[in-house]
């Protein structure tokens, strides 16, 4: 009977995540059809297991205790432990609040995906920070074509207004052609991240980008320069208006784009704190 409950539990878990919309805090909604179909698969298996268990029960009575189910061979505590493994994720997913990735994750693991380490002095590691870059995989021409396409798209706009949809693309283009965007107006949201390398007028504005699920997220954003110390704390969300420029940033040993902040205000954490990578380019 426990098996039926576990399967039901999984069906309910997937249903619950979809019904409440919490699923978007775990995975890229582009792939939601997969977990959506899992509701029905689990529900179906629940019914199957229920029928099987019932039938077994009947047989059990007929044959007077000669049950051949292989599970019955292992000792009771082992079986209990076995099922605990299945019950744990159902309980932990339903019971514990969903954590939003924030600067703690940035700090705790460094940048596990872009390969950024806040403490490392190695510039080759740090340069990965913030910059989605795909150049190595192109023939030179192919990559130039693609980036030119992006450039001509973003390059035409007199002011860049970043939103959930274009955030990752726009950031990549800006890092690719920092010069082209000099003096361009930019407007975007993100959470505050103080790095050990920034001075009191500088901070990073970042967002987590997600490919499939939270496990494969990375962090992307821009360095910002304020005219006077903004006194912002890590993880405060802000809306930034400013002007793009480039700076030789000593700690990274590289020239990177940054934003001269003209105006800013704090905002509430958006409904959708993550940006998702799309397939269309």
């Amino acid at each position: 009977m426990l098996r039926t409950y576990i399967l039901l539990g999984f069906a309910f878990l997937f249903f619950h995540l979809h019904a409440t919309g919490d699923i978007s805090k775990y995975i890229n909604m582009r792939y939601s059809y997969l977990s959506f179909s899992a509701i029905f698969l689990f529900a179906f298996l629940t019914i199957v297991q229920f029928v099987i268990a019932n039938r077994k029960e009947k047989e059990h009575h007929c044959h007077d205790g000669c049950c051949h189910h292989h599970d019955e061979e292992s000792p009771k505590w082992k079986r209990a432990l076995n099922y605990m493994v299945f019950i744990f994720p159902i309980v932990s997913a339903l019971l514990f609040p969903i954590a939003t990735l924030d600067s703690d994750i940035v700090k705790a693991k460094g940048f596990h995906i872009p390969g950024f380490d806040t403490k490392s002095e190695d510039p080759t590691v740090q340069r990965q920070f913030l910059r989605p870059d795909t150049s190595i995989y192109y023939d030179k021409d192919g990559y130039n074509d693609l980036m030119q396409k992006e450039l001509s798209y973003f390059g035409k706009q007199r002011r860049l207004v970043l939103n959930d949809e274009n955030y990752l693309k726009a950031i990549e283009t800006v890092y690719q052609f920092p010069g082209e965007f000099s003096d361009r107006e930019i407007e975007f949201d993100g959470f505050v991240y103080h790095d050990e390398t920034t001075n009191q007028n500088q901070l990073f504005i970042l967002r987590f980008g997600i490919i499939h699920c939270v496990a494969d997220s990375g962090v992307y954003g821009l360095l910002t320069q304020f005219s006077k110390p903004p006194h912002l704390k890590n993880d405060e969300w802000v809306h930034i208006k400013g002007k793009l420029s480039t700076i030789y940033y000593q700690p990274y040993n590289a020239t990177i784009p940054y934003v001269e902040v003209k105006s800013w205000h704090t905002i509430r954490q958006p409904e959708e704190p993550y940006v998702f990578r799309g397939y269309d380019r």
Partner: protein
Amino acid sequence: MKSFLQLNTIFVSILIESMPFVLIGVFISGIIQMFVTEEMVQRWVPKNKVLAVLYSALIGILFPACECGIVPITRRLVAKGVPLHAVIPFMLTGPIINPIVLFSTYIAFGSNIKMVLYRSIFSCIVAVIIGLILSVQYKDDQLRKKEVISSVSSKTLKEKWMGTLQHAVDEFFASGKYLIIGAFIASAMQTYVKTSIFLAIGHGKATSSLVMMALAFVLSLCSEADAFIASSFQNTFSFGALAAFLVYGPMLDIKNTLMLFQSFKTRFVLVLIAYITVFVFIGSLFI
């Protein structure tokens, strides 16, 4: 406490991502169990060992599987009498050369075919070499538990479908356990082990390949997402090291290694791990 919540979030997200594929896997496994007879296996698998290995390494191209869903299928095929050398190459390349994964690799590397080719050819070479070695080394099935296979031909169609479903449930409880434990370990690794430890080890050709392989194992990403992660490492690591990441991860990670140990004899799994590690490593040095 907060870090535990983040761990839990990552853990649940890995499960949400992989469960649908495991469900597909257990259904297919059930169908194999009830509908594939040993005579069919005899007929389909080429007698010539080399041919069988090649066939097995390439069949995955037609078959959308991921690295956790494919283990139950593999075990079922072996239990049905398909020789190891005709299954293991399929298990190794299946999560890599299937259409969905190749497409996502293509997109992740900016609509360029170069990494797609390297990734698929590299994985096929590794799988073929391992298949050939296994064909000489092992004659028996190396399964942990001998499974009694009742004759399926005598059953009615209705019984067969019922059997398929019952089997799918059994299989879910058999392999799901290791998926859950593996996902938990992987998310703990992501939360508590600084990746910078790996990255600090070095950037030589050999060390960077090893680092990327270790990372692929520890992160336990779905083979459909790993290309995007690899692409974010490109300034830090050589093309060969990235290819190693993309070939090693789908073949071995925390989740599917646990599932392998549950299905096959410990010694055999260790040997397999050693082969995969050695050949992927050597191969990456040539790229």
